[in-house]
């Protein structure tokens, strides 16, 4: 046990950056609400640039649910959803959000603003589409669906895990996706009452491109030795990748965040003084128990690779905005498992010792791929995995203390 003595934890310091980012995001939201702008609900992997092109107020059921989980109200909301007859084994984000709609008095405040419209893209899961239907019916509001494919290797060849640049793209799929996106823009014009502005479109995509490059660089730098940052801070990058890409405040974050991590790497400074193990992690963070990562890191097991964060990134090309929006859906969690190749190729660079994989009960996307992913990591990189069943908003299935014990045993077995 001597080996596992907890070390001093030395995060990058992104906390302040996040605080500023949220402050600016919320201030924009308040301002637009005051101006009577329309509210849209959006999901991860949607083309977040539309929020800024059409000046709408965005709300994100996934982000709200994560927030409710961190603040402790998600359990009541999940129970409320089940009491209303919705299935037990559905995504926690759905259950938490429907709980908020049905029993707002139990939900963490501020609640999400009531939507005027909803957009789903199937860029990640059909669950987005399924829940959009439920929400749209509850509120009696319009919705728009962009039907990206579930990607297969015969349509893409190989895909670079971070940039989402594929070897090729089947023309039929690209054309259909773009046509659907153009339909989305027409829908946005209609529901927002804001006409499409070519100049703004260009500006927003240029910002998106600059930001996306920096975010990818941050993910690359995280793979340095020793691991420079903590997953407690890096995991939240998904908020930028999923929801606010295209905003000035996301760019500002990325610029500063990149500088901070670059400096760290230059100094060869790690998140803990003595790195003993380098682990890959995948699965949606258990938002109620994020300190699990901190705990592992303090034991000397750091996380240079977070596949969930990597999935949220893509290299935006402002000269090809339509293709860029489609490429955003070309992550391995929206692809057949032979496309895990790209993941392996990238992970190989990180000199890994093991993997901590989270099976998010109710989420078929992260859960069904878990065993194949563990197999591939073992076969291709020779690293073992610990799989923890961890629904992202329901701590009852994975109490933090039990998770810590399991992780300790895993870490010990690797040392």
């Amino acid at each position, binding site marked *: 046990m001597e080996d596992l003595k907890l070390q001093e934890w030395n995060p990058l310091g992104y906390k302040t950056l996040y605080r500023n980012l949220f402050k600016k995001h919320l201030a924009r939201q308040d301002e637009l609400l005051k101006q009577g702008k329309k509210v849209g609900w959006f999901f991860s992997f949607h083309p977040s640039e539309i929020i800024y092109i059409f000046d709408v107020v965005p709300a994100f059921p996934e982000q709200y649910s994560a927030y409710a989980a961190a603040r402790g109200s998600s359990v009541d909301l999940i129970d409320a959803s089940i009491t209303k007859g919705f*299935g037990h084994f559905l995504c926690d984000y759905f259950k938490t959000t429907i709980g908020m709609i049905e029993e707002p008095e139990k939900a963490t405040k501020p609640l999400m603003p009531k939507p005027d419209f909803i957009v789903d893209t199937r860029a990640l899961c059909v669950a987005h589409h399924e829940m959009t239907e439920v929400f749209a019916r509850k509120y009696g509001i319009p919705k728009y669906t962009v039907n990206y494919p579930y990607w297969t290797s015969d349509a893409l060849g190989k895909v670079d895990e971070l940039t989402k640049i594929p070897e090729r793209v089947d023309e039929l799929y690209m054309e259909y996706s773009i046509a659907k996106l153009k339909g989305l823009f027409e829908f946005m014009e209609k529901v927002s009452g804001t006409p499409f502005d070519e100049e703004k479109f260009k500006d927003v995509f240029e910002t998106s491109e600059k930001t996306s490059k920096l975010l990818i660089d941050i993910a690359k730098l995280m793979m340095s030795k020793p691991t420079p940052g903590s997953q407690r801070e890096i995991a939240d990058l998904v908020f930028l990748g999923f929801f606010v890409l295209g905003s000035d405040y996301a760019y500002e974050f990325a610029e500063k965040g990149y500088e901070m991590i670059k400096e760290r790497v230059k100094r060869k400074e790690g998140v803990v003084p003595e790195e003993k193990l380098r682990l890959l992690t995948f699965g949606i963070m258990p938002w109620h128990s994020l300190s699990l990562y901190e705990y592992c890191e303090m034991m000397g097991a750091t996380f240079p690779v977070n596949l969930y964060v990597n999935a949220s990134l893509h290299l935006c090309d402002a000269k090809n905005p339509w293709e860029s929006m489609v490429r955003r859906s070309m992550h391995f969690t929206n692809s057949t498992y032979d496309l895990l190749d790209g993941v392996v190729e990238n992970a190989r660079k990180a000199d890994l010792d093991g993997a901590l994989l989270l099976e998010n009960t109710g989420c*078929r996307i992260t859960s069904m791929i878990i065993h194949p992913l563990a197999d591939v990591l073992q076969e291709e990189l020779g690293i073992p995995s610990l799989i923890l069943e961890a629904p992202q908003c329901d701590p009852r299935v994975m109490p933090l203390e039990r998770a810590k014990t399991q992780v300790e045993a895993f870490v010990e077995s690797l040392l």
Partner: protein
Amino acid sequence: MGKEVEKAEKIDELYNSFLSREKLKQYKENGKKIIGTLCNNVPEEIIHSFGAVPARMLGLADSTELASSKIPTWVCLYTKRIMEDALRGDFDFLDGIVGMTSDDTKSQFYSAYTFYLKPEFSYLIQIPYVRDDLSLNFFRKELERFIAKLSEFIEEEFSEDRLAKSIAIYNEFRELLDELLALRHLDSPKLSGEDWLKILLSSTAMLKEDFNNSLPPVLAEIKDFEGYKDYKLRIHLSGTDFYDVEIVRMIESLGGLVVSDDLCTAEGYYKGIVEGFNLKDLAKRYLNQSACVLTAGLENLSIEDRLNFIGERLRESKADAIILLRDRGCEICGHQCPFILQEFGKMGIPTLILDLDSPYPTEQMRTRVEAFIESYG
């Protein structure tokens, strides 16, 4: 009574071909390629037009230990059983599989299946969730893409004439089933829900022309039957990929009579004639299927289409009550059940939810069904 026994034997003979997969294995021995399908919306006519045999994959294992080491234990029983059968080698006779992106479970399961079982041929059909012209056009082209891959695998050119012939065979199959279905709607239905499901399941495990030849003598026997008169409650069965004859038998042994359904394996599978003989007509038929998939018209929600589909079935069959079969791992049931309950509750149609978890039927299930039938029968 002799006729009754004869009828039951004929139906069981058909059903046994589903349980034993004997016919499929025979086709294979005769040199045909067998292509497993993972969704009722896979346009089987295409596979059929290549001279191959489309076979709906439905697992028969009664426990799922092997599957549990590969896919989560909480996903629907439908996928766990297919995985179990496949890992046990019971699907080794398949030459390939075709999946569809109709929900997360089906998309991910396609990935898991191809990852672990490595079938010689596999294709995942991308289905749009919106029924606009753009999507219909895309879907037709997607079917062309599928045709090209299948043609390469089977080493056979695609033929529009052969597709037209296959469509005709499938339409004949649908018309025969419509005829059979009408017999369930009579005041004294001539066919039980158990027998209906057995017949439907047999149709998934043989070439449709063989089914079309086998059904008429059975149909004649059924028509001759005077019909069930002593049932207590006419029941509509609602659910997704359900095919457990035992549960239907249990319901009917307690005085219920299952007169209609919206199951992916029964009415949701066969309903809908292809209005024409080319690929576009075929695409239209499959995109317009609204029993369970998440496809809807531009201004509609698919749940509304599903409620309409159920409503139509209820009107035709004059069912008095609904039994909702809810697989706890089914994402469609999970999202849609409350709306079905609400909608038909408003109309005063009693509904019972049965949570499916194998092994079943359990004593508790039986008691609940009995009380339901006693209350409303």
